[in-house]
């Protein structure tokens, strides 16, 4: 395994993958509830909360695992404190477990969500950041310990590579942007205003920094490409992400009660957000030509490049096509948003974490070669299914925008009569996605441990 510290990364990856599996199973239940609302013992809202929270948490666990791995590889030394990292891991898992139990109790007995010390005990009723205040505090502590440990590791060797710098900056920005979502605001407009600071500045800011750092790291590791060149392009990319993404926040401030100048600011800046994403695609394809060594971990490279491409498709294309106020006026809050949310989270961040797992895998298992074919099979099951889920939801969204927003038909009528088949397609492809995830989970546990010849 090389470094003892890599066991920590392995723990984070294992927990991330198990949550990924849970996310998809509850996602299929949620999809079926669109057709049969009473399909399951828990109502849709509880299932959806589990679905989106599992997503965010497994991505964060994946980022932490990958960050621990990358920092150690870049510093070429053990973590500053392995016991602290182990403690941080188990404390995080415990917190997540308690929060999930809370959601389920609240699902059965909504009345149990009582107010204690002025905040709700089990569920704050704000999507993605439903976790109650006590959990917020524990999460912040966990992230601070993680930041401390990774920063001190980089500090210890005084090397401070560019990748480490951007990675730590991204993680710090991530931690800081959690805070605007912790406090209660009386005014629903400001409630949503601050809520979007968290959600938007995460996915279109902090997380993209982390992604760019991982990309530069991976391209160097896999291809042996020149570090200075990679670092230069990484800075240009993250610079453009921040210039367009920070004020691009305005694309969420069109209709929530905030002043009308946001229509201009949000429209203009968010329309430019695909620019750095295109640059990343160009950069990574170009870099493959500067390889200085043969690629051993082909599946790792494959996932990395796929992440870059789907970053552009999911966030760039599916994000930008409804980002101008003239269009968003009709598509806001429809299934168009759901379509974008799915392809963006999968393409940008799920594939990113999976790519990092494959890149780390040989090191974690202490092997040079592993059977790579299962990784591709998993990829195609997941990706083709997700493309069709996105098409189903986009179809449902176009029908909904037209019939409800333009023609004035009722929401429930459109949902139950006109979009019925889209829900069925979505659920079917959800099952296809699950097949891919199961193959991936198996691969994670057996790759590098089975004899190479037995490869199938």
């Amino acid at each position, binding site marked *: 395994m090389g470094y003892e510290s890599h066991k920590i990364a392995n723990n984070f990856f294992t927990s991330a993958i198990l949550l990924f599996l849970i996310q998809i199973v509850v996602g299929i239940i949620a999809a079926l509830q669109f057709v049969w609302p009473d399909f399951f013992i828990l109502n849709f*809202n509880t299932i959806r909360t589990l679905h989106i929270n599992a997503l965010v948490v497994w991505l964060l666990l994946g980022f932490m695992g990958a960050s621990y791995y990358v920092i150690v590889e870049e510093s070429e030394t053990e973590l500053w404190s392995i016991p602290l990292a182990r403690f941080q891991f188990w404390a995080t898992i415990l917190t997540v477990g308690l929060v999930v139990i809370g959601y389920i109790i609240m699902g059965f007995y909504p009345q149990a969500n009582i*107010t204690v010390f002025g905040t709700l005990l089990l569920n704050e009723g704000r999507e993605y950041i439903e976790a109650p205040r006590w959990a917020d505090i524990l999460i912040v502590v966990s992230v601070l310990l993680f930041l401390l440990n990774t920063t001190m590791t980089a500090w210890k060797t005084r090397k401070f590579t560019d990748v480490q710098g951007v990675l730590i900056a991204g993680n710090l920005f991530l931690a800081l942007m959690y805070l605007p979502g912790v406090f209660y605001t009386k005014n629903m407009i400001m409630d949503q205003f601050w809520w979007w600071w968290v959600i938007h500045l995460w996915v279109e800011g902090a997380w993209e920094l982390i992604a760019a750092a991982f990309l530069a790291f991976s391209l160097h590791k896999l291809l042996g490409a020149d570090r200075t060149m990679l670092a230069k*392009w990484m800075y240009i990319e993250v610079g453009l992400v921040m210039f367009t993404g920070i004020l691009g*926040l305005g694309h969420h401030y069109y209709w929530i009660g905030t002043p009308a100048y946001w229509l201009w600011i949000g429209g203009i800046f968010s329309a430019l957000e695909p620019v750095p994403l295109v640059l990343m695609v160009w950069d990574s394809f170009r870099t493959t030509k500067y390889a200085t060594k043969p690629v051993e971990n082909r599946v790792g490279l494959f996932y990395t490049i796929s992440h870059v491409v789907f970053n552009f498709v999911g966030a760039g294309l599916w994000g930008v096509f409804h980002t101008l106020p003239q269009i968003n006026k009709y598509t806001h809050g429809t299934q168009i948003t759901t379509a974008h949310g799915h392809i963006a989270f999968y393409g940008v961040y799920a594939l990113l974490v999976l790519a990092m797992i494959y890149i780390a895998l040989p090191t974690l298992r202490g092997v040079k070669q592993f059977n790579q074919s299962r990784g591709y099979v998993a990829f195609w099951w997941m990706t083709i299914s997700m493309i069709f889920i996105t098409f189903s939801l986009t179809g449902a969204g176009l029908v909904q925008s037209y019939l409800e927003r333009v023609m004035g038909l009722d*929401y429930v*009528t459109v949902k139950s009569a006109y979009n019925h088949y889209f829900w069925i397609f979505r659920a079917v492809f959800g099952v296809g996605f699950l097949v891919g995830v199961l193959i991936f989970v198996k691969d994670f546990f057996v790759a590098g441990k089975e004899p190479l010849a037995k490869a199938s």
Partner: protein
Amino acid sequence: MSKKTAKNFFIYGSIFFFLVLVVLTIDTMIRVPKRAPVITAEVDAGKKVWHKYDCIGCHTIMGNGSYFAPDMTNVAGRKPKDFLKKFILDPRAINPKAAMPKLGLNEKEADNLMAFLEWTSKVDTNKWPPKPVLAAARKEASTGQAIYQNQNCAACHIVGGIGGTAGPDLTRIGPKWKSEELTRYLKNPASVKTASAMPGFAHLSEQELKDLSDYLLTLQ
């Protein structure tokens, strides 16, 4: 461009744009209170009920949230509050086919929630949701049908595939009712069916009620 220039471009550029965002945020905080009615104690209590029952896990509000159920921004403007309150307390008592479960709110919570939804319906949302074109371009065939439309019966009833699902489909309602009884029902539903959730239309004149029921009787 050298790596160092690129690095400075990233660091100073990010700081600059973040400061612009902070300035805009302060300006927004100053302007927002003027774009909505005053927040009373009931509105705040209602907002807390909204969070407590995780309504956003199914509904959107101001277009943000979950996409399983209708948007709540304007619902208090679209339907009478009495009706909405009854619905929230026990959805399936009103509409047996409702997908919304009974969440167990009490009377007081429901009242506060109505105050909150009333408040959100008055927020200046830059004219969102847009006014549908169909509603604007409709032509009425009879006086009764005109009344049906301007009283917005379609918010709760379907005729020929168009309308809401809170009340029964009226596409073939004609044969079910007698003229005199229907007129009485429309004026005060509770006088015909006990515990009816259908709002009364006593503010209409006798002639208007008659025209309306004549129109309904033609639906078969």
